[in-house]
Each structure stands twice: as structure tokens, then as C-alpha cells.
């Protein structure tokens, strides 16, 4: 038999899954995750209480670097590498460089945000043990799923099962992968 990955419970409303997550956290469970069809307000703060500061910081850093890079290629082109005298205007004509600097800054920022989002969420990851659960497919549609993973310190399959029953889970399933 395959190893036990965790136990999942299926709830039918956003409020129920939020209550369940809060209760599990209160009882000391740490290695659990909720899978929902849309972002449930406040659920992420219950499961991951530390605020996500990395992504905005990354995007800001990318904006600064992107602007510097955008300005530099124009400065290097017009002032250092291929100086062209157009009506006596300065080689480093910064007002003319502003537009492209702005665009390249935004491009780098968005690219950093997009790839940073994937990296921080550890995507692409085409396989995950939780996909083995039959009930999981509905988490992308109309059901709210919580999975307590077997790696949790306090994990005990029968206790977890009872816990979910008390919380009013619609369906409970062991995930083996």
C-alpha cells in the first residue's frame, strides 16, 4: 500500500472552511493547506499568518533595476557607444530617454511579478499528491477542501478524521501517494 500523504475533508461553504482552518490552527496543527475555487477572504491569514512581503519587495526591486537597465542601454547607446550630434542637443538627453526607461521598468516589474509568483508558489509543479484524492477535483469548481498532511507533528489519522467530522465535513478521504 502507498504511503499516507494526509487526510482531506470537503466542505461546501467558504465560511465552513474558514471555521475549520481557524479551529485546526487553534488546536496546534501547522502542516495543513486549504484548496478553494476562489480566494476566500481571510483564509490565507489563518493558514499562513506571516504576511507575504517577498513579492511586493521583489517587484519593487525589479522596478528599480529595470529603470536603471532601461536608462543605461539608452545612455550607453547615445552618449558612449554611438554619439550622434542632432542639432547640438546633449548626448545624454534624458527627457528623450524617459519614455523607454518607463516602459522597460514596467516590463521588468511585471516579469518579476509573474515569474516571482510562480516561483514563490512553487509552480509549475504538474504533480502533487493531493491530486490523488477523488474529491479534490471539485476544489477547482464548487467545494472547499482542507488537507492535513501526515508530516504534521500532531498528525493521527483517526483523530484528524474525528476532528473533521465534528467540523461538519461533507466528505473525508485519506490521500495516499
Amino acid at each position: 500500500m502507498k504511503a499516507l500523504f494526509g487526510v482531506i475533508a470537503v466542505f461546501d461553504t467558504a465560511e465552513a472552511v474558514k471555521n475549520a482552518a481557524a479551529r485546526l490552527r487553534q488546536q496546534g496543527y501547522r502542516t495543513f493547506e486549504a484548496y478553494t475555487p476562489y480566494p476566500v477572504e481571510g483564509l490565507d491569514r489563518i493558514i499562513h499568518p506571516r504576511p507575504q512581503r517577498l513579492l511586493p519587495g521583489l517587484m519593487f526591486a525589479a522596478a528599480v533595476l529595470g529603470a536603471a537597465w532601461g536608462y543605461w542601454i539608452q545612455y550607453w547607446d547615445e552618449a558612449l557607444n554611438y554619439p550622434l550630434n542632432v542639432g547640438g542637443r546633449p548626448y545624454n538627453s534624458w527627457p528623450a530617454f524617459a519614455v523607454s526607461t518607463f516602459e522597460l521598468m514596467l516590463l521588468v516589474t511585471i516579469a518579476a511579478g509573474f515569474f516571482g509568483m510562480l516561483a514563490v508558489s512553487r509552480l509549475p509543479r504538474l504533480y502533487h499528491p493531493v491530486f490523488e484524492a477523488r474529491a479534490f477535483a471539485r476544489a477547482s469548481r464548487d467545494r472547499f477542501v482542507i488537507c492535513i498532511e501526515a508530516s504534521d507533528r500532531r498528525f493521527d489519522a483517526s483523530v484528524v478524521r474525528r476532528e473533521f467530522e465534528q467540523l461538519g465535513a461533507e466528505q473525508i478521504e485519506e490521500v495516499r501517494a
Partner: protein
Amino acid sequence: MTMTLPREFLPDAPVVAPDVTLTSLSEEVSGRVLMDRAPLWWWIGFAIAFALFTVLIIQMGWLFIGGIGLWGVNIPVAWGLAIAEYVWWIALASGGTIVSALFFLTRSPWRSATNRIAESMLLSAAPCAGLMPIMHLGRPGLFYWLFPYSNVMGVWPQVRSPLWWDFICLLCYILMSIMYYYAGILPDLATVRDLAKSRFKQIFYGILALGWRGSSEEWRNQRIVYAIMSAIMAPMVVSVHSVVGLDFAGGLTPGWHDTQFPPYFFFGAVISGTAVIMMLTIMVRWGCGLHDVLTGYHLNALAKVMLVGSVMLGYAYVWEAFGPIYGSDVAERTEFFQRIFGFTAPLFWSEKILTVVIPQLLWLPLVRRNQLLLFLISGGIIVGMWQERVMFVTASLEHNSIPSRWGVFFPTLWDWAALAGTIGLFLTLFFLFLRFAPIVSIAEVREVVEAERSK
């Protein structure tokens, strides 16, 4: 005395029909993607679109062999339909970003169901815009010289030129739009993956969804990044279309040399882009049978955006007339009077009627609820904006500062083939989006459904 508008939508009118549930929504929208055989109307539409697209291929092939003399461009009118249509297409695309990004920031509930249509539209229109200047280059095979890259010739692009800014803007705009679209569609691809029955589709959408599971951490990261992206895309799109305006404002040609053109062009983008979204929304609504998700609420909201665009455009037109009349530049004034009473007068006046006068009907709630009228008004706006861009580009060159160099522009058959062909490219791409990707943002409409339910 208080004014009553009995036919106006109540402020808490439902955004989606009350019988839509999370289950029905996912199955309905994904069903359009997962159906084994596309419906007949899709094949008919796609066939027409593809036929027009082949016109573009033929036109481009012949143009690249024969050169741009095939078109009606010559001296003095060296910028003809290709440049006008470049501006027109990029305006339509920009409208998609405005609806999608700006109204995400305002948290407008109607944006949730229309943003994917808007973004699919923009990703279909942007390549059409990009092709136009490349076809116009004369040496299209050398367009990559615009990239600042290290080459053996030691030649670099002139980055002080608005034309180069334009290239950078369009390039960045397309790349950013693809990332913005993908960041938004990721959860929907996971829904399609989980609903797919055949092994091939499960693998296909499984790879596209990158293994999205909808965990609370993924949602949090996606929402943070998506919000910042929206806050970036909104000013981005203003800058893109303003730079198109700067291409003209930077020239000394009478009628172009005016500081108002960046916002003037942007106003045109708001109205024409929204008009395309309106037409596509009405067509998707009927074609896909999504009446319960794309409701009158959405059409009403889009119509109001169009009305605002029309009023802003009217304001810009007043200043366009004020400048030459108040100023002392003879060439500017002559050009302006030639434009409104000369060869381009029919284009000028019919355009004003289509984009500023007729859209005033949208003040009436009755009109905003009538889909046929909305469709016709939107179509008129799109045609009107095309006329405006064409007149704007050609009339100024026709009546430049030296009367001995005046001339007229008249498009040839190949000019029209380029227009028809890019419309074909646009429709082909849009029909592919319609067939292979969820055309409504399922994840975001779920939130609207839940909000309606808890009211």
C-alpha cells in the same frame, strides 16, 4: 423637483442571474472549451475569419515582393492607411487593458465577467497593430534593426526618436499583456483541467495550468501580484497610446504638431476599445449562451464607459478646432479648414456624428438596455474611429506647409486588402481564444456569485 428614471437599473441589480451557482458556472463556461465538436456558428465565423486572414497573407506576400508602391502612399502623403490602422488597432487593444486593469482597481463587479473578453480582444488586436508598421517599412525584413542589440555593423537605433519609443512601447505592451492574461487565467485552466474527460485534454490543460491547485498560498500570491500588475497596466496603457500621439505631435506637420495629442489619442482608445468589447460581449453572450453570466448589468456598465469616452473625445475635438483658429500659424489654420471643408470633409463630419453625436443616445437608460442599438452604436463608433485616424494621418500630409506640394491620398485595392486581412487575423485569433480558453474569468465570477448569494 426630482427627476426619476424609471427604466434605470437599481443600484443593487444582480450582476449575474440568481440561478447561477458555483457548480453551474464552472460547468457552463468550461463546457464551451471542452465540447468535442465546436458549434456550427463557430465554424462559420472561423471560416470567414480565416478566409480574410488568407487575404492578409496574399496581400503581405505581394507587398513584400512589389514594395509599398502597391498602396496609395506617395509624396506628399507618405503615411497612409497602414499607419492610420496601426493607430486604430492599438487603440482597440488599449481599450481592452483599460476595461481590464482600470476597473480591477476600482473593484467594479461587472469587470469580472468581461475582463477575459477584453484581454482576449487585446491579445488579438495587438498583433494586427504590430504588423501594420512592419508592412509599412518598405524593408520589412530589416525591422529587427529597431532592437538595440550588438551587431557587426556597429549601428544602433536612434533612441531620441518617438518612433523608437513607439516600438519599445508596443513590444513591452504585448509582452506585459501576455503575462497579465496568463496570471489571470491560471485558476481557470485548472478548472478546465479538472473537468476534462479525455486524456489528451487533461494533459493539455494540465500542462497549461502548471499544476495550479488553488491552495490558499497560491491564491494569496496570485492576488498580490495581480493587483500590482493591474496598478501597473493602467498607467502603462495610458503611456502606450500617448506615445502613439507623440509620434505625431513630434512632427512639424500642420495638424499634428500639438501638445494635446497624447490625451486625445487616449480618449479615442477608451471609446473605440470599449465599443469592440461591447460588440464581442454581445456576440459571445448569444453565441455561447452565457446570458446568465453576461447580463444587462455588464452591457449597461460598458455603455456608460463608452458614453464617458464619447464626451472626453468631444472635449478633445473642441480643442482641436480651438488651437488653429486661436493661434496665428497660417499653415495650421489652412490645414484645419481644408480638413473640415475640403477633400476629407465627408470623413470629418460623418466621423463626428458617429463618435460624438450618436453615442449621446447612451444617456437614455432605454438605449443602454437595447442590445441591438448598443451593437449598432458600437459598430458606428469603431467605423468612426477608423475614419478619424485615416483623416488625421492623411489630411495633414495632404495640406502641408508648402502649397505647391499639396496632394490627395486615395487608397488602392491593396490598402483595403490590408484592412480586411488584419480584421481576418484579429477574428481568427479571437475565435481561437473563444474555442480553447475560458472566455469568462470563472474564478472571479465565483466571487461575484458568492457576494450575490450572501446579499
